[in-house]
């Protein structure tokens, strides 16, 4: 702001966020990730790298997963955004969330929201992915704690249980 002669004004954004019509003001240079966390107050979406390499910030945008650190908040005006906060039914858990708990697929848990949102998109598209397909789909999500073994198993378990 300090070098700009005319201040850059915030822009209104109206989107469907986790099924709710939501309006907020965001700086035009602000990422969707930052707007979700700092403006809307949904901190379940995590920042691990801010450059598209870790997937901790994964959200669904019009039904496709994206790294929210590489989306501008201003772009989601009129669109549908789904985050980890919208994944569970009221007073319940999504089958993937349950499977992650039962398979001990999280250690520190920082990567977990991103993996869950990404895995949900996979199972919605392909109810029965094989191990290779799961690993390929989740390759944009880094986990440093688990070695992925239990994450892959949790996704397989959720896939088996939702049929």
């Amino acid at each position, binding site marked *: 702001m300090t070098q*700009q002669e005319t201040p850059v004004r915030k*822009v209104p954004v109206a989107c469907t966020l986790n099924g709710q019509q939501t309006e907020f003001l965001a700086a035009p*240079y602000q*990422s969707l990730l930052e707007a979700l966390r700092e403006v809307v107050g949904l901190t379940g979406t995590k920042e691990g790298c801010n*450059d*598209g390499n870790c997937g901790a910030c994964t959200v669904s945008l019009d039904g*496709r997963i994206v790294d929210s650190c590489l989306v501008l908040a201003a772009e989601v005006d009129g669109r549908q955004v789904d985050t980890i906060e919208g994944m569970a039914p009221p007073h319940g858990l999504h089958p993937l969330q349950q499977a992650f708990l039962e398979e001990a697929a999280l250690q520190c848990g920082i990567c977990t929201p991103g993996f869950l949102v990404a895995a949900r998109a996979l199972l919605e598209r392909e109810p029965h992915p094989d191990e290779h397909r799961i690993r*390929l789909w989740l*390759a*944009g999500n880094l986990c440093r704690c688990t070695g992925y073994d239990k994450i892959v198993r949790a996704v397989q378990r959720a896939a088996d249980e939702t049929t």
Partner: protein
Amino acid sequence: MHPFIYVAPRTLDEAVAVLEQHGERARPFAGGTDVLVQLRGGRFDLDAIVDMKGVPEATTLELNGSLRIGAAVPCYQVYENSAVAAAFPGLIDAASLIGGIQIQSRASLGGNLCNASPSADGICPLIVHSTVAVVRGPQGERRVPVEEFCTGPGATVLERGELLVALEVPAPARGFGAAYQRFIPRNEMDIAVAGVGSALTLDTDGTTIASGRIALAAVGPTPLFAAKASAFLAGKPATPETFAEAGEIASTEATPIGDMRGTAEHRVELVKVLTRRTLAVALGRAQANR
């Protein structure tokens, strides 16, 4: 990050006008997977970002024998279109390996080309498909062959106010096949240590190469058309020996540096191997396309 405004034009003319007004201080924006990273890394400052995703010409994918890919069409739309995937497997090779699933939801082949990274995965397959870049600017439209588009790392032929509208890929001739492969140390989410795109068109006899095109990534200041290796292919039998020799020639056209992604020697070796391997895949596709 220096604050910038977000502009979402609905027409090409609007987009061109904003770009012309701001010059170097504005950039088109497709998936943002390069430009946002570079902005945050302090590579440059902008006053305005011009989102191309509201401009119809930049967001449509048209298959009509030839293929027109709007400059802002994300990779997934290319590889999930089964007709495109069947007709242009060589392009799919690249579109399906840029980044991971999240990146492919956003990243465009147009952005890949305009970013002009030497290691870009999308450019070599476009080159071997003899793709033409359709450019629009204050002076109207011009058409640039993709192999002439990049002029150096991060530099292109685009002038002030100019933008890429679409990529036009000619309809593959009978007996045409193409393939792209890159080498990375991991299996995903890496930038190419070296990449090779190859295409060949078989003669009516089905065993002789009528013409071929080879392009190399990450072994020079831009993705480059390997003219000598390409010329060598014409009239040769489509055999492993020919492919190996083409690889040797291509490797002499590479001018790699050594860096954190690999040594120069390794890159030269990779050009040989990947040329051989992609030509073999291209041959299979050419045979299937007769």
